């Protein structure tokens, strides 16, 4: 069961015409899909759209009623390929994944989808993970849209606009035989809001009314000579059709204002931030009524040349508010203005932040610089400079008082995470055999590359831990250790990494971190979970898959047995035997496990059953304040506190009440020969008669020996 259940929220998906829908951005998109009459949906989890797949799964009843097929895709390539259903048949489909990384994985299928084009509308809902809180490399999806000619929507952050555009996206897709992408940034995906709903629509062709005959058309095959024809169609037919559709349906918004000399052309997603900055300058009111004219582009690719030209004409300068780089829109608008001999100056990257999220501060500074650069009596500089100056003053004063930046708080392993002991072990093995090159992968385990472990030399992509070791595997003195999560293993690691390693008879060590789920994204099921999203048994296992493709050196080790893990890792790293040795580190994601067992324990306690609760502790009297234990753990519950010993200045280690007794502390203290301060405390709740008698005797004897009263 995924981390977050939307069972309650999905009821909103049933609201009909005229009713108000209240909920999260992701849920609104789902409602938009249902209102559009889709026949099939799919996707691959990844922040910030992980929960879109969860919502779809939780909405299975509604999907079933409407005859919508739902697929949990193997990866983003699989999801994009699924849209192939719309190439030949008039059925609408939508898939979702994280971008840019997911779009990269999907790009082969996207190219081959875009070239022949689609008959039924095809929509890709992208979680544009750019800016604060992002977990991936910072690149724009815009580039992919341009090179494959897939239209790109960037809706104004407002649920009504998003839902309307979702519906329009299918019409646009069908009117132009072109797939459409809609990019939603993290904050929009998690945004709450409301809009007036429409009725859900059942598709003509669906699970309830299957397609009768297959359709063949050579023009729809991505092979010469069709590919040359398709390339011409893109330019001669589909592009003009798109421009016509966008203009006719007024997908972009023109906001007029009193200012004549300047104007702003903004990505839809930037709209509320731009208005906020204008408000700070006294150039817009609380309701977004602006003095400075705005052209809000809900469709950022393709641009509608006449819309842009008309907006620019007569203005001294326009600013393109476009997040990230390259500034594709700015370049295109500059060349358009030049081609049409329009005298307007086009600003963009010269004043706006080139690299990074356009948050409140960046927006304020960028717009201020624009108005300063293109002075006009209509936009008095006084209030603009004041707004920026006030912000500068506050930040300067704060920095002055604090003296130094406050400590960063990077993500790390959760309390009781089964991945922690693997890296504790690896760190201890390094102390014995020397440093090894670690070819890391994507997943929670990537956090090992951060403090306190700092284990991981490169990260090349999801499921690519092993593949990215091949250039070095026969070139390093010590064997290269590759890491792969079970999520990455099934995403593509099995083929790209393992099969090819065997095929090339390469050398190396692979640690597969098997925690049972796609954990980082919220516990979606994967093939080796044992069941699929519909809770049907799957009977798939990592070990069988490995044996099947010819891996012979496989060891399965319980993650929490640090000692055993050290032995296995050391053996694998120092082995003179050639080939790939795989260690499958098994331990269920603790968050998932806790969610499963907590209610059971609570029930047992309530019914008076005997329950043992375990936690660890540190004796502050024997702790010398060296914190080696923390450097081998990073557990949130293993922390420090001020020493009560007046002679000690350094804080001592301390275990908080969040400890769930996973046992890693004790194992590591033992394996690393750290210190005798760790102890395990087992509390027996609802003790039986024997427990109570033993406890009574022990307390009395020990109390007597301690020279005090019996406890």
């Amino acid at each position: 069961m995924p981390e977050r259940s939307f069972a309650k929220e999905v009821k909103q998906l049933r609201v009909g015409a005229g009713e108000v829908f209240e909920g999260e951005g992701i849920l609104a998109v789902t409602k938009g899909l249902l209102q559009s009459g889709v026949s099939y949906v799919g996707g691959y989890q990844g922040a910030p759209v992980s929960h879109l797949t969860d919502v779809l799964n939780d909405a299975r009843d509604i999907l079933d009623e409407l005859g919508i097929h739902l697929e949990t895709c193997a990866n983003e390539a699989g999801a994009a390929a699924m849209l192939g259903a719309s190439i030949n048949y008039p059925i609408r489909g939508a898939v979702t994944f994280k971008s840019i990384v997911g779009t990269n994985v999907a790009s082969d299928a996207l190219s081959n989808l875009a070239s022949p084009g689609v008959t039924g509308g095809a929509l890709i809902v992208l979680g544009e993970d750019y800016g604060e809180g992002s977990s991936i490399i910072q690149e724009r999806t815009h580039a992919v849209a341009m090179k494959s000619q897939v239209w790109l929507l960037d809706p104004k952050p407002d649920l009504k606009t998003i839902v309307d555009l979702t519906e329009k996206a299918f019409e646009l897709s069908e009117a132009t035989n072109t797939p459409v992408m809609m990019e939603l940034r993290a904050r929009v995906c998690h945004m709450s809001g409301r809009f007036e709903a429409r009725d859900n629509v059942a598709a003509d062709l669906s699970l309830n009314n299957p397609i009768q005959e297959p359709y063949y058309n050579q023009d729809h095959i991505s092979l010469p000579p069709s590919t040359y024809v398709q390339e011409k169609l893109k330019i001669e037919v589909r592009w003009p059709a798109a421009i016509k559709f966008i203009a006719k349906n007024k997908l972009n918004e023109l906001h007029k204002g009193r200012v004549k000399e300047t104007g702003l052309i903004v990505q839809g997603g930037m709209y509320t931030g731009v208005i906020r900055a204008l408000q700070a300058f006294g150039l817009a009111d609380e309701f977004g009524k602006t003095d400075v004219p705005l052209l809000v582009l809900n469709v950022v690719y393709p641009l509608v040349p006449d819309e842009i030209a008309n907006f620019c004409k007569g203005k001294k300068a326009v600013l393109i508010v476009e997040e990230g780089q390259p500034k594709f829109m700015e370049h295109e608008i500059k060349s358009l203005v030049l081609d049409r001999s329009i005298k307007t100056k086009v600003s963009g990257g010269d004043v706006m932040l080139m690299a990074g999220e356009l948050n409140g501060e960046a927006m304020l500074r960028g717009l201020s610089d624009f108005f300063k650069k293109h002075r006009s009596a209509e936009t008095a500089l006084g209030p603009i400079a004041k707004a920026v100056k006030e912000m500068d003053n506050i930040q300067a004063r704060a920095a002055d008082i604090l003296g130094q930046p406050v400590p960063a708080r990077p993500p790390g392993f959760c309390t009781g995470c089964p991945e922690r002991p693997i890296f504790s072990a690896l760190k201890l093995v390094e102390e014995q055999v020397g440093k090894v090159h670690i070819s890391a992968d994507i997943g929670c385990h990537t956090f090992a590359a951060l403090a306190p472990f700092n284990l991981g030399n490169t990260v090349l992509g999801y499921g690519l831990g092993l593949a990215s070791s091949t250039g070095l595997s026969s070139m390093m003195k010590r064997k290269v250790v590759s890491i792969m999560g079970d999520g990455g293993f099934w995403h593509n690691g099995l083929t790209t990494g393992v099969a090819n390693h065997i095929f090339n008879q390469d050398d190396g060590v692979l640690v597969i971190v098997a925690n049972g789920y796609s954990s980082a994204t919220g516990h979606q099921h994967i093939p080796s979970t044992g069941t699929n999203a519909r809770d049907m048994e799957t009977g798939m296992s990592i070990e069988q898959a490995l044996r099947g493709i010819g891996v012979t050196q496989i060891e399965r080790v319980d993650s929490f047995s640090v000692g055993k893990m050290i032995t296995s890792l050391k053996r694998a790293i120092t082995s003179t035997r050639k080939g790939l040795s795989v260690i499958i580190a098994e331990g269920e994601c603790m968050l998932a496990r806790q969610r499963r067992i907590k209610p059971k324990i609570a029930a047992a306690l309530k019914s008076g059953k005997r329950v043992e609760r375990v936690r660890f502790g540190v004796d502050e009297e024997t702790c010398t304040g060296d914190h080696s234990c923390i450097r081998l753990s990073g557990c949130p519950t293993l922390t420090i506190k001020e020493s009560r010993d007046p002679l000690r200045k350094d804080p001592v280690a301390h275990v908080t009440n969040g400890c769930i007794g996973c046992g890693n502390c004790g194992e590591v203290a033992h394996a690393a020969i750290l210190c005798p301060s760790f102890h395990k405390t087992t509390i027996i709740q609802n003790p039986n008669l024997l427990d109570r008698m033993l406890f009574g005797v022990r307390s009395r004897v020990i109390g007597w020996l301690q020279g005090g009263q019996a406890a």
Partner: protein
Amino acid sequence: MAKTKPRPRTFGILIAALGGEGGGVLTNWLVQAISSCGYYVQSTSIPGVAQRTGGTTYYIEFYPVPISELGNRRPNLALTPMPGRVDVVITSELIEAARAVQGGFVDPKRTTLIASSHRVFAIAEKSAMGDGTFDSDLALKACHEMAARAVIFDMEKIAADEGTVLSSVMIGGLAGTGAVPIPAAKFEAVVANSGRAAEASLAGYHRGFRAVTEVGAVETPTPASAPNTIAPPSFLADRVSASWPVETQYVGMAALARLIDYQNNKYAALYLEHMAPVIAFDRAHRGARNGWQLTKETARYLALRMSYEDIMRVAWLKTRKSRFDRIREEARAGDHEPVRITEFLKPGPEEFCALLPIGVGNWLMNRVRRNGNESRYHMGMHIRSDTVTGFLTMRILAALRGLRKRSWRYAQEKAQIETWLGLVLRAANVNYRFGVEVAECANLIKGYGNTYRRGVANFNRLMAEIVMPAIDANRNAAKKVAEARDSALADPDGNQFVALLPGAEENGARAGSRAAALSPGE
């Protein structure tokens, strides 16, 4: 002229919490409460990977006029906070509050800051080999100076007392400030209807509310007292009162208590003898003007060094009643709930030699060290100190303290202490500060097993390669010593430390090091 009502303006609430701490729950509660007033409200968050223990923020905006009165107009609600335009900042932890201040989100003209005063240490703070914590006083100062109103109290303690989550105390605190134009009853209603744990949440809400609205509703924490302080006998205590500078006597008393507990009165007297020349030196060199730093630091570390943690010491500390009581308390064990305590011990050759006479110890250590892998000879054991046999085993080990002063380990420690004390005085003779810095170097030697070995090695190198040559050349190396000590405590690999030692090779062409010109600038 009639007084005109101020024009309503969009209201911004920034919430900063740590992943998994309930920032999401708080956000949902606030949205529900605001929504129940008929206002247009929008919340957003950036959980991402930060939800796995990192810092994460939530942001709410609303327009305090009912939707029904807005007609077709919709307020512009932004997704990111803008410095200087946030009305309320709520954080679940002190440094997160300081982080919001640092970002400029706390405006002295506008922002009410509500924060819990407790600390959850960041990884860089807690993994330092010494004290790497951020100064809480600075954080508090920044919060109070930068906020229009700052309400900071220990919400974690209240949450723990009431068996609830931080979010319920946070929303209570927020309601108490009246900083949001929403009646407190609306917040209370949302918490009261929050499902299964509503009762505890409501208790947390009320405590949070009262903490803000009632004077004295938050207890001021009593400073923690040292456990097991033994009053030293007067014939020893009097020596401290008679001859030690007044400002340093508390260290002396604590040291006596510790060493009597460690060995006996005679051992504590030995400590005083060791200290005598240091105090004499300090008095002769206008120590008062230096705050008696030399005496204080030497006294502190000498006491710690003389009570080095051997098996007997560990066994003694682990079998005290106060420890058993503390463990029960920490584990929140009920009165009738039996508690088992399992000790994880893994003594190595040095620990065994702490029991053995010098000759035997030397022979054993020589044999073990011949292959340079003394870390291999450790014996792992799990001892149940809550059982009679386990307890007795530990107590018998503790009783072996009689063997201590004839042991191999004692001889080692004694030699080291004497070398160190000698160097402290010689360095102080060159320069007072230099002496203090050398005294503080004793902090390098701590821990057990490999940590201990590494510490001793670093200490010896620092003394041999920096301190001794400087003393011989009559040169003040205070700064260099402080730098080297900090670097030795900076990373366990000792890379920084080794780089600081004289003769560290210039190694510009190291694998992987990129030219500075290619690194991004600030």
